[in-house]
């Protein structure tokens, strides 16, 4: 079972640092991570960057990362900024 982390409603610059620390710790401890994005109601560039970082860091540390159940807010934001890596990561889940 992958370790499940559900992100809170607001993921903006105000939470970015804490989120980064939380995810970095989780990354160290668990070989499999699932990030539930269904509760996210607000996200900004800082929040999205943390996800990008996680995506990249997980690849580097060969951690199996799943980004699941993106909320409309997350999908819209990814589309707004054309965040291709996150888009692909979500597509991968949708496809499976």
């Amino acid at each position, binding site marked *: 079972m992958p370790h499940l982390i559900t992100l809170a409603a607001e993921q903006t610059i105000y939470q970015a640092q804490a989120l980064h620390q939380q995810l970095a710790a989780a990354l160290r401890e668990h070989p499999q991570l699932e990030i539930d994005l269904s509760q996210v109601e607000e996200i900004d560039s*800082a929040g999205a*960057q943390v996800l990008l970082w996680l995506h*990249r860091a997980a690849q*580097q540390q060969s951690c199996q990362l799943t980004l699941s159940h993106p909320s409309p807010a997350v999908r819209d934001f990814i589309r707004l900024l*054309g965040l291709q890596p996150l888009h692909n990561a979500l597509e991968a889940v949708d496809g499976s």
Partner: protein
Amino acid sequence: MDLELAMQSFLQESAELLEEMESILLDAEADSITAEQLGALFRSMHTIKGSAGLFGLDEIVRFTHQAENLLDQLRDGHLQLDAELSGVLLRSHDHVKAQLAAVAAGQAIPAGEQDNILADIAALLPPPAGSLPPAEPSSQAEPAADSDWLLSLRFGPEVLRNGMDPASFVRYLATLGQIQAIASCSSALPADESFDAERNYLRLEMQFRGAVDEAQLASVFEFASEGSQFIISPRAQLASHLQQALQAGDAAEQQSCRDIWQQWGLWPSTADNAVAAPTLVTTAPDTRPALPAGADHKTGRSSESKFIKVEAGKLDSLINLVGELVIAGAAANLLARSHGSSPLLESTVVMAGLIEQIRSHTLSMRMVPIGETFSRFPRVVRDVGQELGKSIKLEISGAETELDKSMVDKLADPLTHLVRNAIDHGIEDVQQRRAIGKPEQGHVWLNAYHESGSVVIEVADDGGGLDPQRILAKALQRGIISSDALLSEQDIYRLIFAAGFSTAERISNLSGRGVGLDVVQKNIEALRGTVEIDSEIGLGTTFRLRLPLTLAIIDGFLVEVGSSTFVIPLETVVECMELPVTPGDHGRPERLQLRGEILPLLYLRQFLELEGQPGRRQNVVVIQTGSNRVGLVVDALQGEFQTVIKPLGSLFRHLKAISGSTILGNGAVALILDVLALIQHATQQEASRYALEQEPYPAAGSRQPHNNDTSSGK
């Protein structure tokens, strides 16, 4: 920072100011215009100029500056308002209105008859003494037809920390035209621990189509922070754009941008380097574009549906109706209960639950976090700081504090004045700061929090503080006070709010024209708030705005006096106890001794002149604001109740002890007590009593009746 929001509030504010200006100009007869009206005219241009400056709308700034000069002359009595002058002012009004309309529509600001008006203004003005040179002829082009643009946006690493979000710029661009393709390049983002969550690593590549010209596009990004680099070119200059765009940044960034442009089929497939070629082959044929063609419509729609602009009046009447619904629901519930029909009762209970939800949702619609207003200040601070050559750091806390939307709107103006004032007058020059051993960078704090049923907003600086002597001298010179006035320190600070008072020695673009602090106080008073000043010479000044939470939900404490129910904001209640009976004083001691401290008592029945006789047992509710405590004597305690504050009608506005009303579940009206006013009254009363008599007090520590008859007059 949400640009669109800030822009919207600027446009709305300006429209209101212009409306006021027009109505004054149309109403006022030449000889009957009052000083206040002249002040309002001046202020409208002054404020629009200031705000327009924040958005980099230089054309408007230039024009309004001239109009402002004209109004300044008029206000000082150097000019008379005759038909000609009035005409020029009205034309100026129309022109600014047209300029703002163009801004709102995202079009180029029309040149129109700007030059004619400016010439007329110049003719009316006395020869300029050190004022700005007249505006140069505007060279704005006609609004262009739809054209295609290529954008490479390299936001600086500090944009996020400065409160700006690249996404806001993208959303704003989407309102100017159509974003045909967008992709983020995040090659700079490290995968290891060196990642800084508040640093921006994103670069955006974009294809855009819209009826804009290059200057307009450039101005969108004008106030992104330093360290940003934006390359914007027409589609026709593809080659040179790509060359420029792909030169920026390190090798990894160049490569990932190249990939993006290749995906869009804009980078020539005759790849000039071997690295790019294979990627092109593998990705080009069937990779979906970074942004599906229809996607920008979707984002456009979703941002549209996110916010609906509703007239505030409609919301008010909705809230009123919901209030009535609550009462009707409660009545239906009572009726069902008396009929004893359990299915009916059940359905009314379900309905009551729903009504409660509707009520809380409706109320929360009016509440917005003050952060929306705060978010415009990093820009204000940066610009004002730069203009004055001061390095300022702004620290914001409590941005999530919620208050009524209508108040948030009205606070923007006074807060801007206070922040500008803090930077201009509060914080010293760099040399001065260095000389007295302070850090070169000045600090300005914006802080908001809830306290005792009110919202407190603080604007603080670590500057030189207010100098009472200097204020006093200035006030004397201006004739605001007479030379024999005896004033406390607080009273002296308060003088800076007097109309026409300004200690600035020179007139800058920002302040020193005598507009400002008097307006701040008027605005805050109009919101039924107060302004306090704390200041320490050499250490800094704090302006503390205390505002009531009109229309907010507060936790109330219900008390009963006779047949009336009153609400005391729960935050101000410290404790409750039974009033000790002292037979000799007819059960009415004037104060209690509570754990060694004197507690003045205020009898609500007598104070509000309510009818009826107190019961055998009375209760004391100890309330507190700041360091002052007072015991309110009431008949009975009913407990906590979530209360919707309804402001009082204008007829009762002047009432000191009542701050609002609310409707209880059973439909009865309860008045909300203004704790601050009650405490002030009780402490003053106590102070005057204390001067007359000095006697021991009955102790409230024990609930035992007192046998010794100490408090009756001897």
